């Protein structure tokens, strides 16, 4: 048992944090809802992402990747969340893992790893799962993406313009009705274990993005509480404010424990156990991140309600991440049906298992 990041992982976290901070620095340009900077990374920024190896991190070596562990990937993703990075790294990594799981051609995966082909995951209209058909599907974290794939048919779809979306750092775009001709892919459906592992992978990454988001919300609120003076003292010296921040810290640390476990389990346990762990972690992170980001808005007071202060950017990202691949109600519903159903509820559990 060794429940902490290794020295290499800590070094990787630092280098990821530097680049993530750089990438995020250009984002705070908008001074209002109508002139917010685009989430689409420019060529230079996207090249840096690709050169850092972020897109190739999880792909296996034969697919042009580095074969990193899920824990390694979540080290990166936490930094993306911490700095509210707009470049669609997370969407690309999840889409690539989905394609790898469906045994997409190595050539395509290699191009994705190099940043040459930009792909986003296709999700259901309500964002709770991977889309089974193109109709009403949405490509998530799709800024600058050229395509999304519906794996059941192998159809490659182009993408429409961005829809209004809570999360200002990410784009959601509808799929074009007709697949791009003639580029349908030949894919192979994964077995149950591999499919569950893909779910565990994606949920673990969302959990890590939520973790980074809430940690940065807490850190920013702490900075503000130490410096903002009222009644002749820093507001962070008042018990009411301290208690709010202490509660936030507890939620961040518990989410970190859940994130570590889920990421470790995604590689170490069988698909069923891994997806149960990831589902549990995602449910906890979803509700906790929103609470922590709301607490941060509260500590900032009126400033937290302005467009210029980044508190709302984190709250928005937390809310969107919470919905993507299922919020706490969705996952707790699945747990209720699989673990807390009585004889009178029979049948529902199986139906829900196949749904999830």
């Amino acid at each position: 048992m060794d429940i902490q990041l290794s020295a290499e992982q800590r070094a990787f976290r630092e280098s990821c944090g530097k680049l993530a901070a750089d990438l995020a620095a250009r984002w705070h340009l908008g001074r209002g809802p109508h002139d917010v900077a685009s989430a689409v990374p420019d060529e230079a920024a996207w090249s840096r992402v690709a050169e850092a190896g972020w897109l190739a991190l999880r792909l296996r070596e034969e697919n042009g990747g580095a074969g990193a562990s899920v824990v390694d990937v979540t080290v990166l993703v936490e930094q993306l969340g911490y700095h509210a990075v707009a470049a669609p790294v997370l969407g690309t990594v999840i889409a690539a893992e989905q394609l790898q799981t469906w045994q997409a051609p190595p050539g395509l995966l290699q191009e994705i790893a190099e940043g040459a082909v930009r792909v986003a995951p296709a999700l259901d209209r309500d964002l709770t799962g991977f889309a089974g058909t193109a109709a009403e599907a949405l490509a998530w974290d799709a800024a600058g993406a050229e395509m999304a794939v519906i794996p059941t048919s192998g159809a490659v779809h182009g993408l429409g313009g961005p829809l209004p979306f809570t999360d200002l750092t990410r784009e959601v775009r509808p799929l074009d009705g007709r697949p791009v001709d003639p580029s349908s892919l030949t894919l192979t459906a994964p077995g149950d274990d591999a499919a569950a592992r893909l779910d565990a992978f994606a949920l673990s990454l969302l959990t890590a993005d939520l973790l980074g988001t809430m940690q940065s919300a807490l850190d920013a609120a702490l900075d503000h509480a130490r410096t903002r003076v009222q009644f002749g003292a820093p507001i962070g010296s008042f018990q009411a404010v301290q208690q709010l921040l202490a509660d936030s810290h507890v939620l961040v640390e518990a989410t970190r424990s859940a994130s570590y476990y889920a990421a470790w389990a995604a590689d170490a346990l069988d698909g069923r156990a891994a997806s149960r762990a990831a589902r549990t972690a995602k449910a906890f992170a979803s509700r906790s991140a929103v609470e922590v980001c709301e607490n941060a808005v509260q500590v900032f007071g009126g400033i937290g309600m302005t467009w210029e202060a980044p508190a709302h950017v984190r709250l928005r990202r937390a809310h969107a991440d919470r919905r993507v691949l299922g919020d706490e109600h969705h996952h707790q519903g699945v747990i209720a049906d699989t673990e807390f159903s009585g004889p009178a509820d029979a049948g529902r559990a199986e139906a829900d298992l196949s749904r999830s």
Partner: protein
Amino acid sequence: MDFSDAPAVADFRAGLRAWLRDHLDEHRDASGYESAESVERTLRWHRALAGAGYVGVSLPAAYGGRGLPDIYEAVVNEELAAAAAPPPPPIGHIAHAIADFADEDLKARVLPGLVGCEEVWCQGFSEPGAGSDLAGISTTATPDGDRFVVNGQKIWTSGAMWSRRCLLLARTETDLPRHRGLSMLVVDMETPGVDRREIVLASGSREFAEVFFDDVAVPAADLIGERGQGWRIAMHMLAYERGPADMGWVGRLGRVLAGARDDVRSGRVTADAPLRHRLAAAAVDVQVMQWHVTRSLANRAADSTGSGGSVDKLLATRVEQNLYRVTADLAGPSFTVGPSGPFADYLWSRAQSIYGGTQQIQRQIVAQRVLGLPRG
């Protein structure tokens, strides 16, 4: 990152599982303090667990422990939880205080009895005039040759009615600032001048008592550490007491949840969809708490502030109080009409945010010592 067991831990876990398979059934209901009989059942369970070597496993072998890393304590808690067993005896914090501060003679005299659960111990900290403000205690232990003479009153002393020894925080130096004038003593509860009076809780539990000391003589050899070290030892203890793994917290909540799960799955209790969803939410909480406690135990040696226990206790309290709200509703009409079991359990969950340092005090500790916010 590796949450899995090293081979030695896996062997230990398998051994405990096998022991529980053979011995748990006769101790299933050993978790209460409502009557003399339930206390007796609980103590029998503690002694059985200790006899098999599963109490105080992280203490040195010379004093009745097994000298194992802290993480083994987590394994004991996880396995007891998984088997829906009653919690282990809550003695880790007392045992560590003695093991870490007392001299060899005192350790050899008292630790084996404590860890073997042959002698029950209580902890004399709180006083009527000093609850959250613990450093304000006024019980005195006046040095007098080769002994101390103790006078004063303690309250909320868990298990005092059936304890043989008391770990007593008392003021030995009346001329020093209040934190520096305290010392920690081991008091034989059968010494003349010790008087106990039961406190019946709102839940009906008879676990607590008041203890009165009237010119009680305590040998100087029963001082833990040095005079004036009492506050430091008390804080060291509380860091352990607030760690849920040490207190069997994880096991207790796991047991409650498992009971609820069995009730629903078997059809003994009918739960509608909203209630089943709340149970699932509570299951998420309990699972995350378990992961968190495992992580904090694995890293406790590196917790430089010693305040990790406060984070853990805040989390565990939140999880527990929510869980008992849900099981209260699961009990349905019998929560209010009928035997008082479910209501008493719920009521007891409200104590979690009070004892061992209130929820408010824990948050102050986290805010000031972990997050570094200024004192008001």
